């Protein structure tokens, strides 16, 4: 690891290789790696944390450059691992409690550290990812065995299937042979293909050795702990639980009852696979920093106050919304703000955008900014992207929502009208996807793009030819982009709201009529939309859900859903409806 200061810590006949980064005066963070890894698994996260903290990593006994116990059997018990941890902590931070972060087996061990008596006062906080406490796991299994309901049996079988490798590792000799043989050679490529772990300095060349030794972690602890779990395994420090939703080895259900064991629990979910320290270092570093800072000052993290649904998912993320000065855009900004996201509210209307940002801060956004940009202006969008990336970071969720209305028959619609509506409704989305989407792919740590299309995208109408054309284009663009970005963990959703009570009607242009008639029609359509009275807040909820579930096309209002169904099964009926004159 570059820039790391190495030292050796002796404990129980073992030499542990310890690396330190950052200013030793700052709070100490200890990162514990999992199986089959060495401390290098943390390198991406460690350099990010080193800017603020004193970061300490060590190779667990038998891994990396640390020595292995002899004999191996009985040398990897949780008690001995706790001895190692205390020895490291005493060496690197003798008079201050440390913040603990564990991944996979690192987290399994760390659960032991934070629930046993002898470490009390030595740990300040614990961030756990992809590694349950074996004791909690034991109780989890027991409670499901003693009171089996169909759902609980399902959970048991589901986790049982995901744990296949645990049984394999209990067979003697074979795993060692496999790791030292073909599996060890192939492992980096398997990680790259299945887990999307970027290739680089990880995994290290010590992998076959590490994996072979590490099998004893399982053999020495699993059976004993699962059979007789400790009854007093309560965490004595605040815990942050980060759950990757795509973890192939651990089901999300494992942590259902965790509040019982860890009273001060903050939950986070991340749409990623198992090796998050490699694939999502930015997000992890941000959450760890926030959690440590909160527990260092003794004040709870600001966005812990975010109470909205999906606060575990969007807390601290950066969300950029165009057309955020009113309607669906504003409601979406508020919904994300309630989930604790940081908001960039973009609109042509500076005052409205500022208001959105202002109110977002009041309801849970830790930070919110307003930007005045016309989405159809490519250079302005480029500039915005540069500024956002430099000052606030890379956008995690992009909502291309800005749009304008245009009604009037095809032959009434002038070239100017066409240009204008294409510029905003289509080019605005193209610019957004291209410029911000590029930043997302370059970072390579996932993200999501939401494009606001319309039910008009699949519902033809003689009254809205230009508008519907742009929206249909947005829908198709979203679907194509979704296919293109799927491999990079970036989701794309198209939202088709339907008739929603926003001011798009009162600002819509009506082609082919004079000004007074246009005013009258704007008023009339605004009134009709008002009578329908479908609130933009419900669309915002649908947008958040679409991001969480990574939905492709989301019709929102019942009429939008109805039209979507009809477009698939009875398109002729829709074509007949398209001929009707709207009641304006």
């Amino acid at each position, binding site marked *: 690891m570059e820039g790391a200061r190495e030292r050796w810590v002796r404990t129980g006949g073992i030499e542990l290789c310890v690396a330190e980064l950052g200013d030793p005066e700052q709070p100490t963070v200890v990162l514990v790696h999992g199986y089959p890894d060495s401390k290098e698994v943390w390198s991406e996260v460690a350099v990010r944390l080193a800017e603020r903290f004193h970061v300490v990593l060590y190779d667990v006994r038998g891994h990396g450059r640390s020595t292995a116990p002899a004999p191996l059997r009985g040398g990897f018990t949780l008690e001995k691992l706790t001895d190692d941890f205390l020895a490291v902590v005493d060496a690197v931070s003798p008079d201050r409690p440390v913040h603990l972060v564990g991944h996979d087996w690192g987290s399994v061990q760390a659960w032991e550290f934070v629930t046993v008596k002898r470490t009390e006062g030595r740990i300040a906080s614990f961030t756990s990812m992809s590694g349950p406490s074996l004791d909690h796991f034991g109780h989890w299994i027991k409670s499901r065995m003693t009171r089996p309901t169909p759902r609980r049996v399902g959970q048991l079988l589901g986790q049982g299937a995901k744990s296949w490798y645990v049984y394999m590792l209990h067979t003697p000799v074979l795993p060692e042979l496999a790791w030292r043989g073909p599996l060890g050679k192939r492992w980096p490529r398997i990680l790259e293909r299945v887990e999307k772990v970027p290739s680089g300095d990880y995994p290290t060349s010590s992998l076959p050795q590490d994996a072979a030794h590490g099998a004893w972690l399982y053999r020495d602890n699993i059976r004993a702990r699962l059979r007789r779990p400790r009854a007093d395994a309560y965490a004595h420090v605040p815990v942050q639980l980060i759950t990757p939703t795509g973890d192939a080895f651990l089901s999300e259900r494992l942590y259902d009852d965790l509040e019982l064991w860890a009273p001060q629990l903050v939950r986070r979910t991340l749409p990623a696979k198992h090796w998050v320290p490699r694939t999502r270092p930015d997000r992890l570093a941000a959450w760890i920093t926030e959690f440590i800072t909160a527990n260092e000052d003794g004040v709870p993290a600001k966005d812990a106050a975010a109470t909205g649904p999906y606060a575990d998912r969007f807390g601290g993320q950066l969300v950029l919304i165009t057309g955020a000065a009113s309607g669906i855009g504003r409601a979406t900004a508020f919904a994300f703000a309630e989930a604790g996201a940081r908001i960039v509210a973009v609109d042509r209307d500076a005052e409205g955008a500022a*208001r959105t940002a202002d109110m977002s801060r009041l309801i849970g956004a830790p930070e919110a900014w307003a930007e005045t940009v016309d989405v159809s202006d490519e250079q302005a969008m480029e500039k915005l992207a540069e500024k956002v990336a430099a000052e606030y970071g890379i956008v995690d969720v992009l909502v291309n929502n800005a749009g304008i209305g245009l009604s009037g028959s095809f032959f009434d619609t002038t070239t100017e009208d066409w240009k204008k509506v294409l510029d905003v409704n289509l080019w605005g989305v193209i610019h957004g996807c291209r410029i911000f989407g590029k930043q997302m792919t370059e970072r390579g740590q996932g993200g999501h793009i939401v494009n606001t299309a319309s039910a008009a995208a699949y519902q033809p109408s003689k009254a809205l030819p230009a508008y519907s054309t742009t929206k249909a284009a947005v829908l198709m663009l979203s679907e194509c982009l979704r296919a293109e970005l799927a491999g990079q963990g970036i989701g794309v959703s198209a939202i088709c709201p339907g008739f929603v009570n926003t001011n798009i009607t009162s600002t819509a242009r009506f082609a082919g009529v004079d000004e007074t008639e246009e005013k009258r029609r704007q008023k009339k359509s605004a009134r009709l939309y008002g009578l329908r009275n479908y609130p933009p807040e419900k669309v915002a909820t649908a947008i958040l859900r679409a991001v969480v579930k990574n939905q492709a096309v989301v019709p929102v209002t019942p009429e939008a859903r109805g039209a979507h169904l009809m477009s698939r099964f009875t398109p002729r009926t829709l074509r007949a409806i398209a001929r009707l004159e709207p009641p304006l």
Partner: protein
Amino acid sequence: MPTAVKTELDARLSGFREVQRLAYECAEAVAAQLKPGVTEREAARMQREWLRERGVRDWFHLPFAWFGDRTAFVNFRIPLQFFPTNRRLEAGMPFILDMAPVYKGFTADIGYSGCLGLNPVHNRLLADLEVHRELILREVREQRPLREIYEDVDRLMVRQGYANRHRAYPFGVIAHKVDQVKERRWSPNVFGFGTQSLKGLASDALHGHRDGWSPLWSPYKFSDHPPRPGLWAVEPHLGFRGTGAKFEEILVVTDSKDPEQSAFWLDDDLPHVRRWAEEKAA
């Protein structure tokens, strides 16, 4: 204006002013006693008892109390949901006390928004109500049709990022006329509304129907007329994601030619007005 008419008007207005002050005093007294665990029903009863003790015998409507997200009328579908429930007050929760007592033959109808402890969202809503009070008075003085003023209030709320919650009131009213009420020995209530006052409103509606105006200020066609002289209880009500705030007080509309005299708020010494003044001073 002839002096005799003016004195008569002043006497009437001071009657209304007195009962409005009494109602706000009641609201402040009850608000000061609210603590975590108090239910809406209890708060409503506290208002009723406080006013009964001070001589109120009849009501335009019985006191209401709304706590938490009920201040924003979240998921209100039927009018019965306006009535106080067993919802308990918690720290940081907003509340609204709304009452319309009749005292010595004069009616008041007030709304008092408060909050148990700190709630920045609620503070912002209350502060943002000030422009609505100014807007309503200005446009009434301009003799704009009530429906248009309603729409302007609506637009302002949308611009501020809020939902218009007075739309949830019966007929979606933002205001209704109030008048003097004959004192009767027996004045029963129907669904929380005093029959005497309802009689007055109904007769206004009947007369108004003939002359093309309405005692209800709503977004509908029947409110498409300039403000009628009389006393209007105006209640703009903002809602923002589970937090609501409103004020309600009497606006006096006369047929005077002088714009200043044609419309004015009955009283400028009310809790919410004082609050805005204090904020400006600070």
